């Protein structure tokens, strides 16, 4: 049976209040939030690529990666502020720092990252203050990996079943997917003779992303179902197929053909976008259907009652 066609789990019976949802569906807007997840990953991983390019003397790669880091962070910030119910109060995000709130921690990563990546890109473009520019770039590279992965905690630290149950895998999916996007974008825009690190980053990121995403999809029972059926299922399948095709093309001919490099790079970027939208929509679907809340919780209660009956009985 092709994946994404039907549920792998037999229909379960459960009680509910007129079939109504128990959880509130996330009010986060689309495309704002899934787009932000993608842009944060792209920007974070690009900052690493930029720093490596600067250290190894690849100016074209450095230029593209610095612009991707700065542009991704700026566009991501716009998406995030646009998503707020009261955008004029966006600075309230920096009112307190709460380790219990991934959105708070993330704001304190995104704000300095945006400034540093922007400064590094501006310095690279204008040639002014090169030392300060490099210093800013190094700072952005230090904040880049947490920027790309904290968004996994943002989704996982909720009651949404599909997101919360994947809390061990999501950071690796997001890290790998960010590397894939950054590598892919650089493959599109950088001449072949400087793009080798971009190709390697995309390939290695794709391997990490596929391994982590598959371990979510291969879970038994209801936990994986939201990722396998409906629109999120189609997005996840599309992401996996795009990643596989792009990786094969990159490995075979990415080094020799500019055209292949451009096409494979674009396919990597598409795969990363599809992954973020797929994961986002899977969470929404799992919050809408009371099945994903009631059935596992009811099983937990039964298991506990069984265990205590054994102990007393």
């Amino acid at each position, binding site marked *: 049976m092709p994946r994404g066609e039907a549920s792998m789990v037999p229909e379960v019976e*459960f*009680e*509910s*209040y007129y079939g109504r*949802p*128990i*959880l*509130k*569906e996330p*009010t986060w807007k689309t495309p704002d939030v899934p787009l932000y997840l993608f842009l944060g990953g792209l920007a974070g*991983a690009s900052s*690493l*690529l930029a*720093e490596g390019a600067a250290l190894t003397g690849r100016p074209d790669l450095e230029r593209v990666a610095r612009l991707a880091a700065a542009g991704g962070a700026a566009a991501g910030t716009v998406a995030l502020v646009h*998503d*707020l*119910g*009261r955008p004029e*109060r966006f600075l*309230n*995000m920096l009112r*307190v720092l*709460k*380790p*219990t*709130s*991934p*959105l*708070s921690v993330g704001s304190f990563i995104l704000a300095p990252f945006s400034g540093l990546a922007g400064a590094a890109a501006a310095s690279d473009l204008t040639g002014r203050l090169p030392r300060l520019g490099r210093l800013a770039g190094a700072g952005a590279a230090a904040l880049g*990996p947490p920027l*790309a*992965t904290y968004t*996994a*905690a*943002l989704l*996982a*630290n*909720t009651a*949404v079943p599909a997101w*919360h149950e994947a*809390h*061990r895998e999501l*950071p*690796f999916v*997001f*890290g790998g997917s*960010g*590397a894939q996007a950054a590598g892919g974008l650089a493959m599109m825009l950088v001449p*072949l*003779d400087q793009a*080798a690190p971009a190709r*390697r980053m995309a390939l*290695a990121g794709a391997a*990490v992303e596929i391994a982590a995403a598959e371990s979510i999809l291969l879970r038994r029972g209801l936990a994986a179902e939201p990722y396998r059926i409906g629109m999120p299922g189609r997005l996840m399948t599309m992401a996996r197929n795009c990643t596989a095709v792009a990786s094969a093309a990159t490995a075979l001919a990415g*080094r020799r053909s500019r055209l292949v490099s451009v096409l494979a790079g674009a396919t990597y970027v598409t795969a990363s976008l599809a992954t973020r939208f797929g994961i986002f929509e899977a*969470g929404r679907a799992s919050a809408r259907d*009371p099945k994903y809340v*009631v059935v596992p919780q*009811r099983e937990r209660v*039964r298991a506990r009652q069984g265990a205590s009956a054994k102990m007393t009985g």
Partner: protein
Amino acid sequence: MSSPLGMSLLSDLFSEGRLWGRLDDVQHDAGYGTSEEHPPRMGFFTDTSVCIGCKACEVACKEWNEVPDDGYLLTGMSYDNTQELGASTWRHVAFVEQPFETVAARPPQEPPVDVAPAVDLGMPSLGVPAGEDQATSSGESGVRWLMSSDVCKHCTHAACLDVCPTGALFRTEFGTVVVQPDVCNGCGYCVPACPYGVIDVRKGDGRAFKCTLCYDRLKEGQQPACAQACPTESIQFGELDELRERADRRLAELHDKGVDVARLYGRDPEDGVGGDGAFFLLLDEPEVYGLPPDPVVTTRDLGTIWKHVGAGAATLVGLGVVSFLGRRR
């Protein structure tokens, strides 16, 4: 060797009692000092066995708190046109209609048996003898009525509060959880964090709202509007410790009368959210009323989540390093 101060502070923050598990003095945890220095924790005990579905609580809440309307829709599913708790519904009376056959035919813990709804032929009917557990049933229509006034649970470990990035959600000196509308920027993080689906963002306004347990009235020594308006004392307001004892007595009383289906929901301070500040006596499984059967606060796993985020970030650093090894072209 002891870990650095920052690390030990963090590991303390993510430990049991702080973000999940039993926590006896929630106000102390929130910085209100010892139990002598702050008022007792206040809450609701909603005894659904005496709820008559009059919705006086819904009306009183709307009136007192000046909560706007959220549409006048007829659901067609039941007497419940309110449908659910939300940004503009802070008390919600659930109406469950169960045909007697369904109730009688269902062994405990088993899925419901599909039975055609009872048709009123205008004939005198006997039905199943109405015992104490059908205190809310109307004997003639062959239907058992379950009614329950739902409300924010004011959890001991409140996910909405912990994930709020602005500090708009806070713990009051009464141990309740309240949103400050002048701080909330409508990020919406509290909405998917709540394991009960209570808090929501108000459309057109953009900010999140929920029950305040009438914080303004509590400060004046009054009881919340819904409890004051409840004609059957289904909604009882008071000190949480005292309410828990009262609920235990009520449960024992019902069990003595043979109402074995009665159970308390949210009363246990050892449960997945450390116990609810607003808890319930129910006459069926929680999910029948639209409540999650075994909610667990998401922050129980927050330490694990951050560890994996750290490992994911380290992996990405590794990917970056590996990308620059090997052939130049």
